[in-house]
């Protein structure tokens, strides 16, 4: 695990993510349409702030690092079910929230945009 942690940390450092204001992880367990709408909403909210969207293996590696502890408040994890144990799908399946509400009011809604 130690080697992996160092690898995950290196992704953060090599991409100078500390210099960013917001980092959105796009995860491919969500469908393409969901990810597109999430990216659009993210770009609309982020304005002129420094931001980056990360996809693919690097996104999953940063997600893994985040499952050891919350090492930053800049990371936005674009998923209804990840990290493991996230229960946003429950709100969708019970019919008390739409996917757009989950994106705008919850995944992006808890982010401080100032």
């Amino acid at each position: 695990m130690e080697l992996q942690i160092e690898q995950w940390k290196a992704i953060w450092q090599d991409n100078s993510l500390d210099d960013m204001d917001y980092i959105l992880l796009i995860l491919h367990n969500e469908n393409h349409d969901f990810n597109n709408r999430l990216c659009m909403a993210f770009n609309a909210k982020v304005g002129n702030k420094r931001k980056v969207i990360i996809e693919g293996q690097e996104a999953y590696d940063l997600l893994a690092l985040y499952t050891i502890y919350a090492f930053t408040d800049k990371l936005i994890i674009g998923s209804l079910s990840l990290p493991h144990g996230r229960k946003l799908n429950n709100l969708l399946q019970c019919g008390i929230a739409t996917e757009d509400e989950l994106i705008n009011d919850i995944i992006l809604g808890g982010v401080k945009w100032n």
Partner: protein
Amino acid sequence: MELRHKEEMINLLDTYIEARIFDNRAIFLFGHCNATEEMADYLLTHEIIPTAIFDNNISKQKTNYREIPIIAPESIQNYHGNVHSQHSLNMHLHNDSLLRKNNSIVLIATRFFSEMKAQLRRLGYDGEIIQVVEYNSFTEYSLSGKTLLDKKERVLRGTQILEQIRIKYPVHHIVVLPHDALGDIYWAMSYMQAYCDKHLINDVCIVIVGKRCRQVIELFGEHSIIVLDHKAMNELVQAIIFTCEENCIIAHHDYLYTDLIIQYLNKHFLSFIDYYRYAVYGLNKDARATEPTNFAPFDNKVQIPKGKSVIVSPYAKSVVELPSGFWENIVETYVHQGYHVYTNVAGNEPPIYGTKQLYVPLAQMKAAVEYAGAFIGIRSGLCDVICTANCRKIVVFPDCYYSTTPYKVDEFFALPGWEKIITSE
């Protein structure tokens, strides 16, 4: 505020007071909650007057606690850290208000320390920010070698705990109830059976913190229970997230930093009870809550009169303070009407003036209030435990907002079928 957290906070505050760290400084507290009120109370007893309480909830701003204004954190931009770093102001050191303005400190007693500290730094604050009690081992905004090592060891310890549980319960569905609050445990248990039915789960192992939580679970019948301490619980929870443990649920609405369901309250309403039904367990509106059936009969050792007694329950660990004299007025009213009034106490809690103290085991509490005839309690987990009691039930709410949401605590923690009193200064 739990006793262990309060002792930790007081020990640290005492150290600071003894070292005169607060002298001639503007002192800010961040996050208006029960713990912050306790911290303010303690400072005031030492004649240390906080300048303000910061809170992000707009609804709380412009109110006050014991004449300490509650204001937006952005106000910190008018302040600096240590006056010695402000050399241009040295000539004004004789001016006490200016000295305080440029010599400040922020004290934080909530589990959102890392988030609040980061917010203040983003606002440009360069002063000391002190964590007076450590609630939250999940969050630390650092990638230093030491932090990574600590967190790696922590998740490894959690993995070992998980492995031990799996050795004993290899096929059971693990239901983790991470927070030792009676109300949380009560509603998690109430909807657990419907969740198990939905997912065809036969065998359950429940993991909890503390003996009181066990007592609540036992009201719902016999279960396989594992009791951990707080540290081990947090390590287990982290390991479950990290290892993606299947056949397992962490059944809480607001415990995990990785789960965001509590954010729903920012724009939409969902009650505390419905959080368990819908958000935690993913049940539909037809799901029925299981009522506990293992209550014990009331032994009435102190011979309270049947039907002419009122049991008051004024203590809760996470509710902001009620106005002074509130309970005494309640007691006076009922005594005047001919009732016998008892204060339900635990540990060293004193009875309300004009009442007799009454200690009732949790399992007997429902029968006790039914025997007495009436119950009046501050909103706490005890209200959840006796919510099916057949008697007059009155719940008392402070007039304040729940956390950072736009909803009042009486809305979020509503108890259907109860009479309600909302208090304000």
